[in-house]
């Protein structure tokens, strides 16, 4: 056992370098998810009927189709319909990022709807246009209300970066496999435990940082009614 | 003859707060005693200590010749003989009125479903709710819920019933129906220990009134004594204040 641990430790730096790919993917997913999710949420609340329907359809598709299937579609779809070859990182970013957007939009939508209508009225009464009011008055409040739900989503996305393994991205799980594949099967357990610990640390660190950010931006009296009971969507 | 219920030197503290500081009294079979006193003076705690829903720190309680507070007492069997009616009813939310009254006779006393159902129906009729047996708690008014909870206590054939401010959570117009049930129970000879602010009830039904303050019984006596010539100034002040607060109903 001990010699196995030492041997795995030798591979530590390699695994951590691969982990950096998970981290890059995490940022890409969060960025795509945040931007697209915000747009979808705003469209769902303020958009016209056809736009609203489209946004709802988007949400439904990306929340109902499993992540693994989405990634395959984004990996094999573009060449098939003549867009050209797409590398696994981009395929994973699009598939998992848009999926996160669907979940994030749900969180933001709930937050936007929780803001009293008087806020919009007050903004409009001062001459702001609808879009201006959304950007300057509604969203800054909505994002703060979204923090608990969004933190859950963040933890989910950290873990979901491993799913890119399924489209062959050279991330930490795949590197781990190269350590224990073939003749070195006895290394599988210590290697995978090491990876699991990395994720425990990453989840804790992520939540800690989010807590710091949340305190930075907290405004007294601005909280989701009955907050703290949002659901995770990822394992 | 030894009393049905005997309470000796009960003490209870929550953190640094001494809630009960040595409470003693007895209750004869068929008696109704009413406990009054300002809120926060340990009345509810006292009731809960009697059947150990809250464990007392010190002191003893006997039901007839069985010591409830004994470490080896079969507490569930004893509780089955002591009815408890809560201020907030605490009807089981997932059961109908009938289900609420029936479950303990079935699961605790071991009656068959048919026996328990027959018994439960009789008790619901006794509190005037024979028609409501299929209603869930959320479908009943507060007064009706409290009457179901009295039926739930009665179905166990208890030796006595403890009432913890049974009308305090009710809208004024619903208090009467609950008090009516309690009055008729007292008249039928049920042994009752009632914490309440309903002075009208205390005056007309109680064999004895206990005035509690700061975790001790300050004074006890018949309603006539207590209302006309209280021995302690505090008793008189309290009774005066409460009858002002509650107006006609209290006098």
């Amino acid at each position, binding site marked *: 056992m001990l010699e196995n641990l030492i041997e795995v430790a030798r591979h530590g730096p390699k695994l951590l370098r691969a982990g950096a790919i998970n981290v890059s993917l995490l940022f890409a997913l969060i960025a795509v998810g945040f931007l697209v999710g915000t747009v979808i949420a705003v469209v769902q609340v303020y958009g016209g009927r056809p736009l609203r329907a489209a946004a709802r359809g988007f949400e439904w598709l990306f929340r109902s189709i499993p992540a693994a299937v989405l990634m395959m579609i984004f990996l094999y779809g573009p060449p*098939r319909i003549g867009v050209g070859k797409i590398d696994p990182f981009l395929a994973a970013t699009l598939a998992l990022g848009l999926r996160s957007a669907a979940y994030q939009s749900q969180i933001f939508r709930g937050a936007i709807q929780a803001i009293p209508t008087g806020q919009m009225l007050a903004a409009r009464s001062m001459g702001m246009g609808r879009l201006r009011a959304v950007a300057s008055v509604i969203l800054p409040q909505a994002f703060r209300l979204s923090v608990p739900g969004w933190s859950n989503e963040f933890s989910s996305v950290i873990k979901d970066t491993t799913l890119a393994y399924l489209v062959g991205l050279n991330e930490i799980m795949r590197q781990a496999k190269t350590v224990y594949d073939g003749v070195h099967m006895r290394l599988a357990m210590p290697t995978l435990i090491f990876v699991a610990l990395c994720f425990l640390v990453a989840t804790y660190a992520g939540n800690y940082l989010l807590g710091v950010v949340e305190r930075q931006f907290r405004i007294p009296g601005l909280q989701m009614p009955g907050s703290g009971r949002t659901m995770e969507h990822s394992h | 003859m030894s009393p049905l219920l005997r309470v000796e030197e009960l003490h209870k503290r929550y953190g640094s707060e001494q809630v009960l500081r040595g409470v003693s009294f007895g209750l004869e079979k068929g008696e109704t005693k009413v406990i009054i006193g300002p809120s926060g003076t340990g009345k509810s705690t006292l009731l809960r200590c009697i059947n150990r829903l809250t464990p007392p720190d010190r002191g003893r309680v006997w039901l007839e010749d069985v010591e409830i507070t004994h470490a080896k007492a079969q507490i569930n069997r004893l509780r089955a003989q002591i009815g408890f009616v809560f201020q907030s009813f605490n009807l089981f939310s997932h059961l109908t009125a009938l289900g609420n009254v029936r479950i303990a006779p079935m699961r605790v006393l071991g009656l068959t479903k048919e026996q328990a159902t027959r018994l439960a129906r009789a008790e619901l009729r006794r509190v005037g709710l024979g028609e409501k047996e299929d209603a*869930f708690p959320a479908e009943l008014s507060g007064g009706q819920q409290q009457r179901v909870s009295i039926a739930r206590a009665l179905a166990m054939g208890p030796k006595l019933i403890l009432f913890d401010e049974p009308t305090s959570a009710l809208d004024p117009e619903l208090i009467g129906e609950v008090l009516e049930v309690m009055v008729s129970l007292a008249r039928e000879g049920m042994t009752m220990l009632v914490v309440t602010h309903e002075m009208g009830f205390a005056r007309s039904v109680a064999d004895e009134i206990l005035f509690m303050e700061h975790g001790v019984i300050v004074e006890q006596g018949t309603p006539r004594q207590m209302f006309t010539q209280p021995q302690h100034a505090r008793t008189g002040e309290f009774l005066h204040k409460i009858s002002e607060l509650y107006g006609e109903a209290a006098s």
Partner: protein
Amino acid sequence: MTFDPAWLPRLAHGLQVTLSVVAASIAIGFGIGILLAIGRVYAPRPIRWLCAAYIQFFRGTPLLVQLMIVYFGLPTWGITLSAFSSAILAFGLNTAAYQAEYFRGAIQAVRGGQMMAARSVGMSFRQAVVLIVLPQALRIVIPSWSNELILMLKYSSIAFAITLLDLMGQAKRIAGREFMYFEIYLVVAAYYLALVFIVSQLLRLLERRVAIPGLGAPGESR
């Protein structure tokens, strides 16, 4: 786009595997989850901590890692399981942790007076939990539990990574043989969409069937 009807029997077989794995792991997770939740709410401190640690580990690490630990890791310790058993075990242990958290929330949402009233009529602690608290908690938990079941259904599609021939595994196999990657995955996506839709409707039906007036999730805000 080309769709070969010859795919259907194989996909049907895969579907069967998917449903079996999900049903078995959800059932395992349900049993362990309830025990963990009761442990977290009512048990004395050391047991409460153990339950919390279990939940922390399984919620803090990716499901794929857990799946690999069972399939590739356990043989290191002399325990070798088939892909099918590995998937059920890993998913079951994982969903147990999530279900436990939902059960715990539901148990805590049952008002404290219910337990007290149950004890006041002479019920033992066990009777009070089984007859009074759990029947209410299980109704309160249905919406979040449904969500969990559907998540498991979707996440089960990662098990092709350990060679399981579930819906996704069969698709990958067909795709590899016939070079019809895009098409087959679109078909599989449709399968999952239909599956998720049907299951969520069934769960909604269940929720309505066992509904009791006044007994819902408090502050439904999802």
